[in-house]
């Protein structure tokens, strides 16, 4: 029972107690027509995350401050923002990671059109999702069941961890400052989705055309910005984008390779990053 008794009485952040402290935040206020940063100072409490402070500002000083959030536990991907310029989930950014007394700046994610304050129009992502050819499973096993093995499922489950926070889309330089590329580029989130479908042991659908042309996979030059910001730590570049690129090269010009892979349900690919 030693593990129980050894727990310090003050809790995890006892050394950096926030009692009596305040914090000042600069938050973007405005809409598509324009706006400015506004400063708010509110009391801090132990263990707070950035979203807690935003909620406190909303409750006490700015009832109409627009912010998206749902689960407050890093599971829904709603509260993406740029905190001191870094794209993060507000609910998973602890206040004790900032230097006490320093003003913290929060702005909306930049790649998508602003609606109001910290809320942006992310409909681009939902539009692109519609263009992905759906999952199409192969026939059932002769006994009416489906069998898949954990080792084949593991790598696709990594992609299924995606919470659609769109931070990867936000930092992707192909679209971050290039509105004109959005037409012909789906972005890292959709590449993860495409990889999940392409590597699904049961799937039989053909997405090679989409990958090569409409999704714009070729635009990506593997700078790994997307991987760095992923709050689910999905190896977007190594495990999703690079294998898709290899596939476009080999299978687009060698349809037999594509058929062989679809029939076996297995991927000969090596070098998965764990």
């Amino acid at each position, binding site marked *: 029972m030693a593990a129980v008794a050894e727990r310090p009485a003050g809790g995890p952040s006892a050394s950096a107690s926030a009692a009596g402290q305040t914090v000042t935040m600069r938050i973007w206020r405005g809409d598509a027509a324009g706006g400015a940063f506004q400063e708010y100072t509110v009391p801090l409490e132990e263990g707070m995350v950035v979203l807690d402070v935003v909620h406190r500002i909303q409750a006490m000083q700015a*009832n*109409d401050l627009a912010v998206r959030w749902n689960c407050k536990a890093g599971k829904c991907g709603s509260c993406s923002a740029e905190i001191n310029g870094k794209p993060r989930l507000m609910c998973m950014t602890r206040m004790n990671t900032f230097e006490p007394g320093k003003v913290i700046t929060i702005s909306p994610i930049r790649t998508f059109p602003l609606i109001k304050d910290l809320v942006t129009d992310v409909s681009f992502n939902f539009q692109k999702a519609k263009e992905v050819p759906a999952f199409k499973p192969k026939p059932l096993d002769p006994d009416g069941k489906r069998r898949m093995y954990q080792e084949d499922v593991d790598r696709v489950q990594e992609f299924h961890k995606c919470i659609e926070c769109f931070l990867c889309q936000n930092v992707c330089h192909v679209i971050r400052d290039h509105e004109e590329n959005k037409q012909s580029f789906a972005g890292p989130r959709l590449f993860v989705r495409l990889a999940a479908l392409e590597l699904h042991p049961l799937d039989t659908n053909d997405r090679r055309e989409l990958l090569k042309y409409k999704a714009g996979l070729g635009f990506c030059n593997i700078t790994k910005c997307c991987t760095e910001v992923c709050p689910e730590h999905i190896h977007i570049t190594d495990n999703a984008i690079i294998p898709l690129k290899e596939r476009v090269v080999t299978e687009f010009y060698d349809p037999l390779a594509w058929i062989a892979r679809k029939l076996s349900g297995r991927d000969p690919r090596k070098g998965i990053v764990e």
Partner: protein
Amino acid sequence: MATEPYETHEYDVIVIGAGGAGLRAAIEASAKGVRTAVICKSLLGKAHTVMAEGGMAAAMGNVWPEDNWKVHFRDTMRGGKMLNNWRMAQIHAQESPDRVLELEEWGALFDRTKDGLILQRDFGGHRYARLAHVGDRTGLEMIRTLQQHAVHKGIDVYMECNVQRLLKDGDKIAGAFGYWRETGAFILFRAKAVVLATGGVGKSWKVTSNSWECTGDGITLATDAGAELIDMEMVQFHPTGMVWPPSVRGILVTEGVRGDGGTLKNSSGERFMFKYIPEFFKAETADNEKEADAWYEDKKNNRRTPDLLPRDEVARAINSEIKAGRGTPHGGVFLDIASRRPADYIQKRLPSMYHQFKELADVDITKEPMEIGPTCHYIMGGVRVDADTTATAVKGLFAAGEVAAGLHGANRLGGNSLSDLVVFGRRAGLHAAEYAQALPSQPVVDAGEVERVMHNLLKPFENTGGENPYAIHADLQETMQSLVGLIRVEPELKEALDKLAELRKRLDNVSVLGGRQYNPGWHMALDLHNMLTVSLACTVGAIARKESRGGHTRDDYPTTDPHFAKVNLVMRQENGEMRLREEPLPEMPDELKQLFEEGH
């Protein structure tokens, strides 16, 4: 009276809510060939279903071939303290395996057994390992699978659109009226049938696992439209929510921690659940640590660990330990898996719990125990529905998922919610579509009624210098937490009634700052109507049920009462008042009754 233009859309079936139940309903309705739309308050894929962690209960028998629907049915009824609607429990147990397999057909990837089948995990109150799961993020897998399937079926989705009122043509549903959050503009849906799939009510309590969305919208829409509610006093406090630091208090810690070997301990390291095994579960629960630990591997020769008693029992036990002074420094108890399972096993089985504690509490759950305590999680009560069709008392109005009542009785078993969503979501979509197809013409919406609703919705902008909606909300949460919480007594419940009446008056005087565009203060002011409605219904039910059963514990009536064992408390609004009456439970057929007599 203020009036302004609004957009109008016409459908056969509209589904309000895009969690598991709403999406499944929409998929089914659309498959029947009717014009279908989904309307949701958040972005698609963000609904509270993503928070479901442990899994989806279905007697597939992949791990324990002995399992079948009858065992699942019996577990569900006993977990619900026999207050369940037997027919819903039967349908649920019979159909959930097919709904799991259907998700797999649509691309979901559940964890696998060695033979390549869907793996199943142990959970509280389930006799066999029964929960199909994906690590501890099963809800995310469900919602993403349904979301993508729905998108490819071409169903119209209205995101960040909030329905405020159902409209009727005589006694029939005619549509729904609401607003776009983004612009604040109004929107009218003319519809032959409406499916409510709006989820729960947890945002009325201070310590809750629920998100901002869980404000009892569907229950309020239904009762405002004349439907009946049942069992509104039955609120589940999940035994394991985070307690520290204060800002994360209430966030859910999956029951999967205990399902995978974790155990509850008090401040002196005692596994206290052995002291709290109720008579009702004695025969099937281990009374010593050795047997409890052996049960995980060998269920034939051992009885289940008391750590996995149904949630109501565990939550009360934790509460008693804390009250007796045996709690942790931050007012919880310990949940320990670190000393019981290897670190890599914990990381593989419970990745998001590991992440959550590491990031939010600086606790490494592979090395240290967690501090946990009860958190408001789920309402078993809600809109009264027909077991087979999910139809409510209002023609053309259907309800499925947490908003509907009956399946879970007085207490829901873990894992029975995700399966509930898809089993009854499908039925709601099917029967709403059939109802719409049989209706000869589109019902007529009363334009005058629309104008009255619009006027009400804009009232908070006209009040100046009134109440801050967030302050009213904070006081409501304080009231429900302290007076209508896990343990209840009559004087406190009556005090709650007075406070709720005061809050209702304050809400009349609420005012909002800023404009119509994406204004959370306005949205909160409107949601408060729903939160106050469900809080009142819960309190009225809690006063009337003079016994303790499942999610309803009365300190002044600490035992079950044979009279209340046989009745639902049915509520209906009449002239603005909640009227309550008792109605006998539906009678279970003899062949099902036998399942409880054979001593399974």
